[in-house]
């Protein structure tokens, strides 16, 4: 009787869980899965553009997620509820596979590194090297946290 009850519960529970499962996709170049739902919390994993994260719950502006078995938090502005697969995008000369309109939008429908490279070649006077230097400069989290604390500002 107990075995039968267990099987019945299992059949009810599994679809119920899968119904609730939702994934979000990382839409920033790189981001962090944090131990708790706040900026500056310890980083548990690093995620990249296109990574799919399983949503466990939402806590204000943060999603509690699971990434390859690592639980943690990510800010809502770093992810999209839309999903896409980079592997579905075709390369020139390889067989074309269709991607949904949503995938096209998310994966960079027109302006991508190849377009930028061609634009740079046509406009060699533009200072892309300085842009790279500006992007490469980043105040570390430790220093920023200390800056906020010493200025008696509010932590984010």
């Amino acid at each position, binding site marked *: 009787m107990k075995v*039968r009850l267990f099987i019945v519960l299992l*059949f009810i529970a*599994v*679809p*119920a869980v*899968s*119904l609730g499962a939702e994934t979000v996709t990382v*839409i*920033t*170049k790189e981001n962090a899965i944090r131990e708790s739902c706040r900026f500056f919390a310890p980083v548990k994993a690093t995620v990249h*553009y296109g990574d799919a994260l399983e949503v466990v719950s939402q806590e204000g502006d943060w999603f509690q997620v699971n990434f390859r078995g690592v639980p943690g938090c990510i*800010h809502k*502005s770093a992810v999209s*509820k*839309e999903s896409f697969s980079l592997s579905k*995008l*075709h390369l*020139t000369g390889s067989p*074309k596979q269709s*991607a*949904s*309109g*949503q*995938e*096209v*939008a*998310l*994966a*960079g*429908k*027109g*302006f*991508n*590194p*190849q*377009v*930028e490279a*061609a*634009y740079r070649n*046509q*406009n060699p*006077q*533009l*200072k892309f090297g*300085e*842009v790279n230097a*500006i*992007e490469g*400069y*980043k*105040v570390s989290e430790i*220093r*920023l946290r200390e800056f*906020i604390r*010493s*200025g*008696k*500002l*509010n932590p*984010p």
Partner: protein
Amino acid sequence: MNRILYPILILVFFAVSCSQIDIGSIGQVAQETFSAAKPLSDEEEYYVGRAVAAQILSTYPLLENRSLTEYVNSVGETVALHSDRPVTYGGYHFAILNSSEINAFSCPGGIIFITRGTINAVRNEDELAAVLAHEVAHINHRDGVSAIQKARLTQVATLIGSQAAQRYTPAQLSQLVSAFEGSVDDVFKTIVVNGYGRSQEYHADESALSYLSRAGYDPSALEDFLERLVSQGQSSGGGIMKTHPATADRIERVKRETPSVKVDASAFKIRTRRFQEAVR
């Protein structure tokens, strides 16, 4: 009993699993409707922003002062973390232009420029934060990319249709580069030459006040800075007036919308002291 029960359970299992697909489809339709209002993806916005920044750097020289750049980045990052869009595809980056002009520019995606003239014109960290918060608000509102002519984006959409690509054919690439160049020029003209529309500027001021108070800065610093520009006669002619609506109008609105917050005088002094050290 088992012969009847188990097949029923299996049918229930598959029926519920299939219903998940339907729910997903409904969600997808809703998401597609939503994203249709957004002209570019975050990644595309980033590439346009990089090219706009490269154009600005071809017009204004970059000031290479590591300690001042770190300070400006710290103030800017603090404000950005309290904005409505604290995370962008490539992140926020702040740089100083070696120009005596009083101005600041926000490139789509997150690169923000402030001139040396503006840093000299602000009197304390809270005023610097106010200027940067205004620029962060333009990025939050995607004001830069909204300047791109619709026809260019339609051209891109028509060109690639439903096919996504990581690499394009030479013919596709040539047309895309043309659309990209046009888009970059549209944004550059708006943010550097013509300026945003009045409503965009007022909205950016409104959001800046909110970010400042969330961060713990004194929001009235925005009004203080704008009033000083008017009193010093900086609000006419070039500079900030060239790319912003009449400063007097802005001051009136900012006055009305500034939230009343209790300012910690000792904290303000600490921040002013470190500002003075940074700009020395």
